[in-house]
């Protein structure tokens, strides 16, 4: 196995970057009290603390309340289609692998309609950071069940209670091939900043599933629900390199719900490191177009 060097983050002249540098053009239109405010702020803080220049970061979202995030942060952004952020982000990362590409969205966007891309993006271990603002409800469509809604939960589309089992993103991601799997909580912002910084610095696919309560439509999974339950893994001496312990922690749900980094491995190359086309020459997007006369002659000679 090849040894992986932690990516070096270029720190620009500190004078040029202040935390407000990452403030977007408009104020978020989320409901007052929405957990997503905290995620946005944590992401801005993480970028600032890592000294990443805004023009070197691309934030790609799908569709949904949380997917409005790119409009609220001063980096390059793409606000794509419902469920497609990871596919678009993958193309963007391969097109310019020098960009820091961060995908954001909600549980419906990522685990529901985007489930197929989620599965396949993880197994590729492409160097993307995926922040899922998991509120266990469809908010923008005014309160229907989501792939992470708990069994029995009453929503507008399940008025007699949800009869389906929810997805558990943590074990799914560990088994699926993600190499950095974490869970955060909007109510623990400082902790969340560290999780996001770790995810951005991780070379490979990183998932941070974030409990980000919907104060309007989810009366089950509220701040009051999570606050007494969340237990920070980093304070418990959890070994993130132990697969079985990570899986076990991922399944814990009840009076104690673990948050923090469950699983991390740095011994696997990321997709870009696997691709000989990216070995040299800089980003594909900036390379010269066309082929040499010798290459053209070779292609034609194959046809003769």
């Amino acid at each position, binding site marked *: 196995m090849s040894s992986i060097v932690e990516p070096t983050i270029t720190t620009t002249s500190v004078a040029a970057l202040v935390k407000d540098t990452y403030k977007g053009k408009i104020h978020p239109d989320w409901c007052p009290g929405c957990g997503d405010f905290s995620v946005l702020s944590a992401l801005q803080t993480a970028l600032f603390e890592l000294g990443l220049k805004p023009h070197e970061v691309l934030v790609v979202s799908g569709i949904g309340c949380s997917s409005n995030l790119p409009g609220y942060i001063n980096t390059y952004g793409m606000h794509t*289609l419902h469920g497609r952020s990871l596919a678009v982000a993958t*193309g963007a990362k391969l097109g310019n692998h020098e960009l820091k590409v961060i995908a954001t969205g909600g549980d419906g966007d990522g685990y529901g309609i985007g489930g197929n891309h989620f599965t396949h993006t993880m197994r590729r271990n492409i160097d993307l950071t995926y922040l899922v603002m998991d509120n266990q409800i469809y908010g923008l469509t005014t309160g229907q069940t989501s792939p992470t809604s708990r069994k029995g939960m009453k929503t507008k589309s399940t008025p007699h209670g949800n009869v389906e089992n929810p997805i558990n993103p943590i074990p799914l991601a560990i088994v699926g091939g993600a190499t950095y799997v974490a869970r955060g909580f909007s109510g623990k912002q400082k902790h969340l900043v560290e999780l996001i910084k770790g995810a951005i610095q991780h070379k490979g696919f990183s998932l941070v599933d974030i409990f980000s309560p919907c104060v309007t439509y989810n009366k089950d999974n509220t701040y009051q629900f999570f606050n007494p339950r969340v237990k920070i893994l980093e304070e418990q001496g959890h070994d993130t390199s132990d697969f079985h312990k990570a899986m076990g922690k991922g399944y814990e749900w009840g009076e104690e719900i673990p948050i923090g980094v469950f699983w991390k491995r740095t011994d696997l190359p990321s997709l870009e490191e696997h691709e000989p086309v990216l070995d040299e020459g800089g980003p594909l997007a900036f390379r010269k177009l066309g082929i040499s006369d010798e290459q053209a002659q070779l*292609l034609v000679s194959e*046809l003769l």
Partner: protein
Amino acid sequence: MATVDFSIGIGGEAGQGIATPGDILARIFARRGLNLNAYNAYQSIIRGGHTFLTIRASDGPVRSMGDKLDVLIPLNQDAMNRHLRLMGTGTCVLFDVDKIKPGTAAEGVQLCPLPTKQLTTGNKLAGNTVAIAATLQMLGVEFKALEDALTRIFKRKGDAVITENVGFARAGYDYATANFKPFPFKAPDLGKGNAVLTGNMALAMGGVAAGVKFYAAYPMSPSTGVLMYMASHAQQLGIMVRQVEDEIGVMNMIIGAAQTGCRAMCATSGGGFALMTEAIGMAGMIETPVVCIDVQRAGPATGVPTKTEQGDLWQALGAGQGDYPRLIVAPTDQLDAFRTIPELFNLCDKFQCPGLVLSDLLISEGTASVDPKELNFKTKIDRGEIIFPEAIVNGQAQNPFGGANDNAYLRYKNTESGISPRAVPGVMGHIHVAATDEHDEDGTLISDEFTNPAKRRMMVEKRARKMEAVLADIVPPKLVGPETAAVTLVGWGSTEGVIREAVEKLASEEGIVANQLAIKWIVPFHADEISHLLVRSKKIIVVENNHSGQFARYLRSETGIAAHGHIRKYDGEPFMPHHIIDAVKEQLAGKTELSVPTHEIQV
């Protein structure tokens, strides 16, 4: 004028080794400078079924599979039973006498039984080699051409295999010399070599010439050949090739790559295209240029995966919800496919919109010869108004990173042309969001709390305005043939060649003066030019490979001109010239306004 024009049909079951002898024959003819068309009728099956490869060669233009067969090589009894009835006077049928009974042939058909077992000393794989050796002998091709071809093909297997196969070929060649009557003509050697390629290879090579750096696909017949070409040349040419989990992912992924500044392309067939359409609308909305090839096959749904059709015209016209500018082009043959891709990329870059290519199985899996000089990879490249990091002009600006309320750069600036300079991620001072929600000039969403009818109207009109200038950049279609013709045959895309042959044969064999209008550009559409040409036509007949007359309907919607007659084929097989000729004759005689030719070859 052509002095020779002959066709060879090889039939058998999938897995019997039809592709290799087909390839050997095609390359031998092309190396002599002959023009070539090869069409393979096959089924969605890996072993078994019936595959029928038709190779036509001539020293004159070859624009379709033609109308007749001169040589039939049935590799099993089924192929003999199916096709012997197609063979007429002057033709010959070569078959393994140990395996196949010929049945009753028409008068003047030379039956050529080959004692294959004896000639190949029992080697079961060599039967096809014996048959093509005998065929080449009868066509007056010197043995060395075949020896060279076999040496090339078996090079990797070593000298022993080469010697053995050349020996079998020699036996077949000599047997034909001693026992069969050669054709009265010889396949000439024109002293210059032609290149041989399929349409899928041409489309991929067009992408290479255009500077495609990112290619993604999900395998789907009959478009997979583009992926195979790209994948096998990716490392050598520095192209990122990805096989993606589904076509939704494919289109979204190439848009991501294109957003960063790559030229990005994908190919699929109708079903995959259907999955891509929402994202094609995204490319329209965020004004990111991508090229998507739809290699049409017989639909709907899974349809007939290995058969051709021109059935996706309205799917392309209606791809994605809402109104947005897109370009749609239907290349007319393999060489045109090669040239179209770079031209389309230039237009997509200039007008910042998706470009759709309507190929079909006939072009994409069909094989043609081209003069290698025509495969010019040094094509013009125009990236349009794109801003790369090298072009930093405001690196000294007070706020080099942009930020809150900084409107120094407007990604979707409402310009007179509708085209707004496009900065790619990584450029300082040009930060913006590319959003699929309706957005303001700076990229800010106007669809949520800021909904604003005036801004929505402005942005719809800005995008739409881009299309006004496209027509001036592309060549309008031309009428081929005399203006005073009795009938004008209108087609689009892949039917150009077969219609041309039909027009020529109508004149030379039937005394009917026809002309032809072949349409390549669907969107934008040269409505004025086309109307101008067609209002003077005595009789307009639209020829197309679908059931409902999709192009005839489009022609009427864009020009108000309703065709007088229709020739439609939707049995999965392409037109042959005589299908069109017979239909024109019956329509000129007033017998019908809709002809649906019957495909006589049982495949």
